[in-house]
């Protein structure tokens, strides 16, 4: 029979297992080519441009836009009902967690000449350079 006093300790042990398992799986995944953890990318807005203009990211990554310009900006997906950081005043930032693989074109809704592209690529999908040449 398990003493009542041991229950909390036992319960704590069980609650720790999933976390430990997750850490082990994550480590094994990285070692054997699994999905790496999400990353954080920064795009600076300065001189009326997104820098870098084009960025390769993975699904689940976070992209942060920081406005270094005097005037306000947005980062707004061109597609209808796409994401939008809202208006970012000087030194303010906005973030987006990217979704499925593909190419997302975005612009500043206030200055339509300012454009950028997120290339969302699964970590396992080969880059164009790594693809074998056609026969």
């Amino acid at each position, binding site marked *: 029979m398990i003493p009542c006093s041991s229950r909390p300790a036992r319960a704590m042990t069980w609650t720790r297992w999933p976390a430990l398992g997750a850490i082990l799986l994550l480590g094994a995944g990285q070692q054997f080519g699994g999905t790496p953890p999400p990353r954080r990318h920064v795009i600076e807005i300065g001189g009326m441009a997104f820098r870098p203009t084009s960025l390769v990211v993975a699904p689940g990554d976070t992209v942060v836009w920081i406005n270094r310009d*005097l005037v306000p900006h947005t980062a707004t997906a061109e597609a209808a009902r796409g994401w939008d950081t809202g208006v970012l005043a000087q030194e303010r930032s906005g973030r987006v967690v990217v979704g499925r693989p593909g190419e997302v074109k975005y612009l500043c809704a206030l200055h339509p000449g300012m454009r950028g592209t997120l290339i969302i690529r699964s970590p396992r999908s080969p880059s164009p350079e790594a693809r074998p040449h056609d026969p």
Partner: protein
Amino acid sequence: MSTTTRRLGLPLLLFSLVPGVLRGQSPPPDLTDAEVAHVAVTANAIDVALGRLAQGRAQSADVRRFATTMITDHSAVNTQAAALAGRLGVKPTDNAVSQSLLQDAAGARATLERLRGSAFDRAYMQREVAYHQAVLDALDGLLIPTTSNSELRQLLTSVRPAIAAHLDHAKALEKALGDSR
């Protein structure tokens, strides 16, 4: 008035309202930093005021959005200019260039206030193209080279890309309005 005369005459009329000194036709005046600051603040305030007129009067949603951006951007620049002037202990000083800008703005506003609908939209965008081109030329040929204080010069330099972007945006809208006639 024929269509051709309207197309050629109105831009020329509006462009003639932009002071010669900003178009580089007059010899550049010798401005102090306090006077340069006043010119910059005045130039921004003029476009904010004209933007407010356009917000209430423009027919095209794109033109109204452009006007809103002009109000937001030029107000943001003036907030920075006021903060910098306060930090430097500089009081912007009225001068002949600022007076010339204000006189020009009053004339342009009087012209625009007589217009309605698509005629207003076209005239406002033509004015914005001419004005931003003139301000860009003034930044390059007068204001930035004349300024001796490095922080004020840096502010003017960092404003330049915004003015250039406004000019491109205004040209695109002006063309779109012309194409839709």
